[in-house]
Structures are given as C-alpha cells and as structure tokens.
C-alpha cells in the first residue's frame, strides 16, 4: 500500500488511518481510471451518481487536506515535498468535482469549487509564510563564451523555408528550420515581425533564435541544442529526445519528450505529458540586448515556475517519476552568444 508514502503524518489515530485508506483508494481509483484512457466507459468511472455519496467523499478528502495543512506549522524540514503532496491532493479533489459535476446541482458544484479554491489559498499563504522566497539574481558572469558547441560548426544557414505539406489544404510556407542534420541554425528576429516559428525534424543541430517571436512550435528533434529568446505567446514541444532547450515564454507545453533538459523561464506552470527522463533548470541564455527583449515580452522577472511542472500523466499525491530538477552541478553555465553575429563564429 502506498498509505505510508502518501501521508506519513496521518497514521497516529485510527480515525485518521481510516480516512487515509479511503483517500488512497480514491487516488488509486482516479489513477486507474486515468490509465484506462479514452476507452473507459461510464460504468468504470468513479462517479457516484449520488450527491450525498459525492459529498461525503469530498468532505473526507477535504478533512485530510486540512489536517495536513495544519501540520505544516510544526514541520521544520521537508516542507517543500509536504506542500507538493498537499497541492497534488487539492488537484485530485478538484478533479473529483470535475468528474462528478455533470450530475451535481449547480449549488454543490459552486460550493465545492469554492472549497477547493479556499484550500489552494490556504496552501499559498502557508507556502509563502513558511518557505522563504528565493532571491532572484541575474547571473552575468562576464561575456564568457559558452562552452557548449557541437563539433561541426558551419556558417549560418538563415531561415530556410521549406514548404510543409498538410493533407487537406495547401498551406503557405511558414518561417522555420526543418529537415537538417549536424547544422548550426541561426535566426535573428531583431527588427523583424516574426509570428509563429517552427523548428522540426532536426538531428544533431544547434538552433539559436535571437530576438522575439510570437509563438514557437518544436517537433521531432533528436540530440539538438535549442536556444531561444523570449516567446510572447506559447511554446509547444512534441517528440524530442536527447535534447537541451533553453527558452523563455508565457506558456510551455511538452509532449512525448525523452531524456531532455529544459532551462526555462515561464510565467505560468510548464506542463509535460507522455514524457520521461526530463529535467528542469532556470533559464540561462543571453545575447546583446536580451534584457530589453525580455522586458518587452514581460519575461524579465524570474518566477520560479521552471520548477512547478504539472505532469498530466501523473495526477497523484507523490512526485512524478517522469521529471526532476536538474542538479546544480550538472547544469550548463550561461549560454552567451553576444559575440556571434549571424553565425560569424570566432573561436
């Protein structure tokens, strides 16, 4: 049973133990339902179809979370994982409401959601009370050259535009890098108005995007290093393996990533889905004028969200095994391309 790992603080009284059993079986069921995926039928869902049994389940979970919250004050160490667990339980609770909302009276949906948001608020308050904020420091260790280079340096190939086939309609060419092996690909967006930019089907390449783009799509990359300036909108990454990404954006979604490191600055919580062996660290890219670009994109402030990863394939009370924080001694230093104008490498 995972009772012990879920809530180590809750095994003292028998009442709590029974609470906990219910909680863990609940989590179990949620995750089972989760694994069955789209083929699950109405009958396999944890819907109670009865308001009262929903409410009693809901209240049990709520009590568990509240008692966990209450214990935070007396814990001195291990606060972070403790809070993470609570946050996960709260999102389980939210999901429970979601799954049953179709038969609940709207009053109950509203009041349940209110409870959920109150719990979140409490957790936030405790979090900021008990865990001191990390100080933000923008590391600017001189204009050191980065030590990350791929062997086959070549003068830049500037934004080669390859038409992409879409089945149903002939779509006009869109800017991007596609179908390359062993290249250094540089896009300088300074002074250009770049909308969406696509990076796809690359093997062993290094990609640098200087300046600001509105949206970035990344698809099918292997053993690549990708450094990008601020992205005003969102980044969507699919099917990447053995890569390093250094990127800043308002939203980041990562699907089907394997053994890849992400150095992120992101205003909201990054998410992963169907991924494993992915690691996260803070943003570390710089070039001449990046501060202004970051400010212009409202990405100058470090939010710490690079570590607040939501795993859609792991909606459970314990830390997802699919991602981790990249240990500090394994992180790359600042990647600085200030002195490399348009691929004129001087090594």
């Amino acid at each position, binding site marked *: 049973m995972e009772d012990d790992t879920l809530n180590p603080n809750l095994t003292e009284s028998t009442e709590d133990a029974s609470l906990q059993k219910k909680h863990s079986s609940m989590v179990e069921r949620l995750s089972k339902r989760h694994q069955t995926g789209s083929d699950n039928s109405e009958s396999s869902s944890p819907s109670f179809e009865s308001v009262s049994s929903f409410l009693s389940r809901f209240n049990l979970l709520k009590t568990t979370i509240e008692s966990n919250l209450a214990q935070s004050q007396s814990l001195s160490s291990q606060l972070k994982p403790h809070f993470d667990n609570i946050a996960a339980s709260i999102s389980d609770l939210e999901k429970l409401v979601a799954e049953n909302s179709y038969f609940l009276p709207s009053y109950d949906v509203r009041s349940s959601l209110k409870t959920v948001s109150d719990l979140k608020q409490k957790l936030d308050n405790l979090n900021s009370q008990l865990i001191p904020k990390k100080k933000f420091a923008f590391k600017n260790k001189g204009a050191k050259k980065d030590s990350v280079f791929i062997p086959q340096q070549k003068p830049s190939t500037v934004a080669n535009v390859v038409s992409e086939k879409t089945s149903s309609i002939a779509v006009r060419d869109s800017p991007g890098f596609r179908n390359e092996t062993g290249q250094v690909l540089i896009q300088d967006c300074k002074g250009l108005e770049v*909308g969406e930019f696509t990076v796809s089907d690359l093997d062993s390449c290094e990609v640098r995007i200087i300046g600001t783009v509105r949206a970035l799509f990344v698809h099918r990359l292997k053993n690549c290093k990708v450094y990008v300036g601020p992205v005003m909108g969102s980044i969507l990454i699919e099917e990447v393996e053995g890569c390093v990404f250094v990127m800043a954006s308002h939203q980041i979604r990562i699907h089907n990533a394997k053994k890849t490191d992400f150095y992120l600055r992101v205003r909201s919580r990054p998410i992963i889905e169907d991924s494993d062996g992915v690691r996260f660290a803070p943003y570390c890219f710089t070039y001449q004028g990046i501060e202004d670009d970051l400010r212009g994109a409202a990405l100058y402030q470090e939010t710490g969200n690079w570590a607040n990863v*939501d795993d859609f394939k792991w909606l459970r009370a314990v830390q997802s095994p699919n991602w981790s924080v990249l240990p500090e001694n394994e992180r790359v230093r600042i990647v600085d391309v200030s002195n490399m104008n348009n691929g004129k490498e001087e090594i």
Partner: protein
Amino acid sequence: MGLLSIIRKIKRKEKEMRILMVGLDNSGKTTIVLKINGEDTSVISPTLGFNIKTITYQKYTLNIWDVGGQKTIRSYWRNYFEQTDGLVWVVDSSDLRRLDDCKMELDNLLKEERLSGSSLLILANKQDIKGALTPQDIAKVLNLEAMDKTRHWNIVGCSAYTGEGLLEGFDWLVQDIASRIYMLA
C-alpha cells in the same frame, strides 16, 4: 427540441445559458474566457481540469465551462456535455501541423448525441499572429460545409490577445441560442 427541454428553459428564473468551451490544448480557451470577462490574461497555466465562469452578457447569464484540452484529459470532455446550449470550438489558427488532429477531435465531438441540439461557434483564434490561417481557410480544412444541415454554426476569426472578434462571436452564439429556445422577448 423536445417539449420537456423547452419547459425546462422557460421555468428558469434567470435567462441562463450553458456554454462549453473545448478545443485542442494551446488553442487559447482560458485566455478567451478571461478576456471576455475583462480579467488579466498575462499569467495563465495550461488548464489541469476545468474552470467555470458566470458572466452576465446582455440580459443573459452565461455559465461558461472551460475544459482543459491536453490529450490526457480530452476523454473527460463528455462529462460536461449534458444540457449544453452552446458549444465553442477554439482553433489555434497558427498551428498548421495539428489541424488534422483538430478536425478529428471536432468530428468526434459532433457525433455526440447530447450535443446535437447545441449551437456551434468556431473561433479561429490567434489571428493576430503573422502566418495564421484565415477563418475561411480554417473552415475549408475542417470541412464545415459538410456538417449536418440541422446544426446551427458559425465561424469567426478572433484574437484573445487583442480581444478582436470575441464579441462578434459571442453575440452570434447568444442570439442563436436565444432564438432557438424561444427566449427572445
């Protein structure tokens, strides 16, 4: 529309409408809802679960259900189908590669019997991004003309970033629902 459901609507004290927002992840559903409601759209995390917003729009109360679009949670969409008056399908017009996915998910949704009576608004979002497809192109890709003739539908280009097109879209949706369920005074 059955007699029962008409009575149900008439019985409601407020003129409520239930709107369901769906679409692929990254299409901008949450941003659209917050923008319409005049809220800050600068920090929005991908939706893990769902959000509900109650918005007073003209003389109607809209209950907008904004459901997460990540692949893993699309199978939960059906939990929200019951009693939906208006369906809003949001498309990221700049995501050319996933238009096929987008079409497939929409086709699946429209097969759903519980949604057969609801008005369908397609929002071709992110028109502000250079390189985005026009609503006309999106309509072609999604093959909207081939839709069941009984369905009330409309496609509108919009930008959740600037707000352009959102009111036009929701005006149509609300008017269409209102006239359909005999609530026009």
